[in-house]
């Protein structure tokens, strides 16, 4: 029960059975799953933006938001289905409603959100059934924040150290990132006369994304390493740089068509790259058994220390 005190029993450098991973790395494919995470967030935040634009009399901004929301959820769904080992069985996810499965909850969220977002966009573009279309848009906006954040729970609810241990911050990182991407599309595609709110959303979202990832990587300790190393580390830096550049562009260049478009592109790219970075960091943390074993060992050590403090004579049972 007191692992740190004991002599190492394996040759230095081996923490596991022949250094092999303890966990299976995610079977999810790239780019399918990172895109699924990104597009779902983009769509969800765009719906909220669209509904607010609609209610405050910014029809062209609302249209951009609605079209982005509909295209995003379609793309997200397509990426999810493409990733299934048996794509024809996608509907099997709708045979149960299972609160312990974030993917089940996510599927139901998409299933209820998707048609609303699609109807809002179709009505806006065609001019048909405008009242129903606007109502559908409000409905989509109500579910939009869930779309923007549930994917964080989806990946955190695994044994993958870099994902699971990041569960407090990931929803804020993804939610902020979703806002930044939705605002990015709006900045790039909507007329300047209507994009003032989008610029503010960009600042809030990008700020939230950067703050959340910063807090997360500072708190995680050893498990933060995968976020700083290798491909994930480069992608994290790229995401940070793109998002910060987009933030600056949104703050300073909103009145310029070109600067707005460039800022928007940076924000969208930064948001997408963040998902690839987080995905990659998770895979890396599964591949190296240290990230599984060392934190668990430390936890056992702390528990043993606590037990030793409360009980006078600890039995020398080599447990754990």
């Amino acid at each position, binding site marked *: 029960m007191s692992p740190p005190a004991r002599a190492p029993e394996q040759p230095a450098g081996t923490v596991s059975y022949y250094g092999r991973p303890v966990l299976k790395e995610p079977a999810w494919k790239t780019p399918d799953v990172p895109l699924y995470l990104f597009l779902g967030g983009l769509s969800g935040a765009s719906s909220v933006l669209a509904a607010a634009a609609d209610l405050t009399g910014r029809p062209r901004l609302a249209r951009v938001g609605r079209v982005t929301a509909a295209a995003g959820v379609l793309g997200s769904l397509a990426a999810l289905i493409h990733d299934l080992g048996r794509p024809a069985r996608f509907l*099997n996810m709708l045979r149960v409603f299972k609160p312990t499965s*974030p993917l089940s909850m996510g599927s139901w969220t998409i299933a209820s959100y998707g048609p609303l977002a699609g109807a809002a966009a179709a009505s806006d573009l065609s001019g048909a059934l405008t009242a129903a279309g606007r109502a559908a848009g409000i409905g989509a906006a109500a579910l939009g924040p869930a779309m923007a954040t549930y994917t964080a729970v989806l990946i955190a609810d695994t044994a993958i150290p870099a994902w699971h241990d990041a569960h407090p911050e990931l929803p804020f990182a993804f939610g902020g990132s979703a806002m930044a991407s939705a605002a990015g599309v709006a900045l790039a595609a909507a007329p300047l006369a209507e994009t003032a709110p989008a610029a503010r959303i960009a600042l809030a979202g990008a700020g939230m994304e950067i703050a959340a990832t910063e807090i997360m990587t500072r708190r995680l300790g050893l498990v933060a390493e995968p976020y700083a190393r290798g491909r994930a580390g480069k992608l994290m830096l790229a995401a940070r740089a793109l998002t910060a550049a987009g933030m600056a562009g949104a703050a300073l260049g909103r009145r310029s068509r070109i600067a707005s478009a460039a800022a928007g592109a940076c924000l969208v790219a930064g948001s997408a790259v963040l998902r690839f970075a987080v995905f990659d960091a998770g895979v890396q943390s599964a591949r190296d058994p240290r990230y599984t074993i060392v934190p668990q060992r430390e936890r056992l050590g702390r528990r043993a220390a606590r037990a030793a403090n409360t009980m006078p004579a600890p039995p020398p049972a080599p447990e754990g």
Partner: protein
Amino acid sequence: MAERAGLAGRLYGPLGEVAGDAGYAQPPPRAGFFTDTSVCIGCKACEVACKEWNLLPEDGISLLGSSYDNTGALGASTWRHVKFIEQPAASPRPRGEAAGGQAGDGGLRWLMASDVCKHCTHAACLDVCPTGALIRTEYGTVIVQDDVCNGCGYCVPACPYGVIEKRAGDGRAFKCTMCYDRIGAGLMPACATACPTESIQYGPLDELRERAASRLTQLRSQGETAARLYGERPDDGVGGAGAFFLLLDRPEVYGLPPDPVVTTRDLPRMWGYAAAAAVTVLACVLGSFTGRRR
């Protein structure tokens, strides 16, 4: 004994009636494996019997350079995996020569262990499965219904032991069923039947736990002070495993996580954080529209 502290007991912690909790009216006693690695001779009869009975496809023939282990890991088509660990006999830890374990030539100590799906009380694979393909059987074991699985792969990173896996070319996830088809007919699982040393013992879990406790006492009294049980405690991170082990060294030496926790334990908190983030998103977006017109 049945402790069901509301939602907490359902997701985490001791759970007396596993099959009962899953909705079976009068389930048979919970079935389990007790793998006593101290008597494992590394014959791999369990691996072969499992492959044969369950018609598992070949999944790679190669020399891995890890003692006699050329299997590598549990996976979609390997449901029993015999591990071979070679240790210097002159261990830095004071210890008499192993009562279990094999003192090989050249001052080596040889540990062998047949790994398998743990059939957790709180099974993350089952919790996260979005189709209901993974289910709890009346024996308290966990199986995949292959006609329901859509290959989403969520169970794969959810398992804290790295057991379940998607089969390449098939797309669905597979793992040990504890020979659901055999135990239902009153037979023992293929691996336990084939094991020549009773290293793999099958039976009612309660009985196995008692047997394991007395075996542990026996080994300790013989000087095997590092012997320990792994996965037998109902208060551990997965609520106790349906398949537990007697190990002669630390779990990580065998490639097992030292303190696995079912990820779903934290799920309510995760949804809480996500809800807070969602409200923040909503507030930020709506707030951005309340400022000046331009």
